[in-house]
């Protein structure tokens, strides 16, 4: 059973600001100069809400890949921040139950899709959604699932989280049982609840990031029965280039195998980085059929995730 990511689409807001603009607007905690050293340059900021971006990404996915809405068996919606999980919320208490996954199901006529939301794995959300989708397909007669993710930071929020520049964006994936590409060979997630308090445990989270990342990458590669040398390309989440440099050194992976173009060009799109980068790497000819790809991600909670795909 070749479960894989058949297609990916994403949308970015129109507004792109460079580090100096963000600094002047008071949207950074660290200096623009330092963040540039860490590999960042731009952030995309949206005037639309998360649902609008999710909706646009879903529309693009269905249209560009001729997907029949009624053939979708499940929709997994991921968002890292709480506001991404409600639509048209008002002072009316019941509006808290206005779920975007349900509205997407209705808006796009996904009549046969069951829905679920993934909200508590932070930036790992989309990766968790893909894992849920794959497990769902593997354990049922279902053939197709959609994973959709979108986050938009509140307008007054800083555009930096622990030395990473944050962009808004939306992404939609088609996970298919008999896929023709991006076969899911292994996936692991580690959750360490000790770090649940992101504010109080901020230092420990930074310190725990690297050794836990090393452990999960090694375990996932072992699950996929490949070693570091067989990884053709590392598809990152767009945290600082500096942290990737350290992690790749720790793993013994050559820096040239990292697809890092989007770190400066886009920044960290919360939950969707890996999959946006996967699409761009493919379209820019940076990966070839049969390549083993390593996707690594981290989300508050704290959660570490790793995936091996065969392109």
């Amino acid at each position, binding site marked *: 059973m070749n479960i894989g990511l058949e297609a990916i689409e994403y949308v970015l807001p129109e507004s792109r600001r460079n580090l100096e603009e963000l600094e002047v607007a008071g949207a950074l905690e660290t200096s623009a100069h330092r963040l540039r050293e860490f590999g960042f340059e731009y952030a995309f900021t949206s005037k639309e809400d998360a649902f609008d971006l999710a909706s646009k990404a879903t529309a693009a996915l269905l249209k560009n890949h001729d997907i029949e809405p009624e053939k979708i068996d499940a929709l997994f919606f991921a968002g890292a921040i709480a506001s991404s999980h409600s639509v048209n919320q008002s002072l009316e208490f019941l509006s808290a139950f206005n779920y975007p996954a349900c509205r997407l199901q209705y808006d796009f006529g996904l009549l046969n899709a069951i829905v679920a939301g993934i909200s508590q794995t932070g930036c790992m959300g989309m990766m968790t959604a893909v894992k849920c989708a794959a497990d769902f397909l593997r354990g049922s007669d279902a053939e197709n699932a959609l994973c959709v993710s979108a986050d938009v930071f509140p307008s007054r929020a800083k555009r930096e989280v622990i030395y990473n520049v944050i962009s808004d964006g939306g992404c939609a994936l088609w996970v298919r049982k008999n896929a023709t590409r991006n076969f899911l060979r292994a996936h692991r997630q580690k959750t360490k609840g*000790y770090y649940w308090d992101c504010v109080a445990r901020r230092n420990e989270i*930074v310190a725990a990031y690297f050794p836990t990342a090393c452990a999960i990458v090694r375990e996932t590669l072992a699950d996929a029965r490949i070693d570091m040398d067989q990884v053709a390309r590392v598809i990152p989440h767009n945290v600082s280039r500096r942290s990737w440099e350290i992690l790749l050194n720790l793993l013994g992976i050559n820096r040239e195998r990292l697809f890092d173009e989007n770190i400066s060009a886009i920044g960290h799109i919360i939950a969707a980085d890996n999959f946006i980068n996967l699409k761009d790497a493919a379209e820019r000819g940076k990966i070839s059929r049969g390549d083993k790809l390593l996707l690594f991600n981290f989300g508050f909670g704290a959660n570490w995730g790793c995936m091996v795909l065969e392109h």
Partner: protein
Amino acid sequence: MILLVTGATGAFGQRLIRKLTPCDDIEKIYALGRQNRLDIISRKIEFIEADITEEITIPDEIRCNMTAILHAAAETRFSAPLEEVRRVNVDGLANILNLAFRCPRLDRFGCLSTIYIAGKRTGRVNENEFDHAAGFVNAYEQSKFEAERFLHEHAAHVPVAIYRLSTILGDSRTGEVAKTGAIHEAIRFFYHSLAPMIPGTAETPVDLISSDYAVAAIGRLFCNKFESGKTFHVCAGMDAMPLGEMLNAARECFLRNRPEWRKRAIEMPALVGLETYELFVRSVEEIGNTALQQSVRAIKYFAPQLAYPKTFDDRECASALAGSRVKRPALRDFFPRVVEYLINEKWRRLDTNFPPEPI
């Protein structure tokens, strides 16, 4: 023996004096220090206030009768700038040596040094080896190297023996840590999930000794087995523990003494190359993250030593101690005891800025 001990009021100096005081061969101990903080009272001991970074003047009746000097005073902060440590460790030694020249009855001069004058050398380091061009990991190592060189060049007419000490972990019987250093901080940061990486490999030997062995060995070598012109390694030697085994032992100790620690699911620190470690240290300095900076700074002047694996030969020392009651406790036996002590004491002797232990 009428003995002058420098650095007498430091943690190690006090242990040394406590060990030497009962010796029948010793008639008198003059404990030299900047401030009288001696916690041992004996008719044999007399405190002399002096700063070794200045010219040392002591009453003629003491100077003329002095037969032995044991120089234990040192600036041991790894993070101190070179000029600062030189002032104590090299200039201070010169001042003590000047005093030694003016002691007509002096028949022995013992100087405490460190095995880490070997700096960035790798491989086997013998006791009779001194000079090298490998460089140093911190200013402390360099200053002690320069101090030994000063002795070689200027102490030809003084009977000198050098005792190169390893890192002192704690008391082998009780686990008590009188003075904490980088190694204890490193263990603390591992415990608190603030030690993401350490330079070295799982096989890198870590040479540590107990404080009781250190004072007993030096007491024996200096008082009973003094050999002018000799250098001794008071170290773990072949008993050194591989870094990987040591981290595992620390982890087991955390789990045994604080079962709740398991719930934190803290990974073992990654063992990395020096380049990666330095990149991480630089990044932490650049992001200005206070607690993480604190943890990194506490060990960054010491940890790179692990990237230069070496073993210290101590056959001269072992041979001189053979047949005596001085036995080196096995590091694997007392390491857990010291870690347990640190956990139970909640690293209280370390700085108080660190967050309190939650468990």
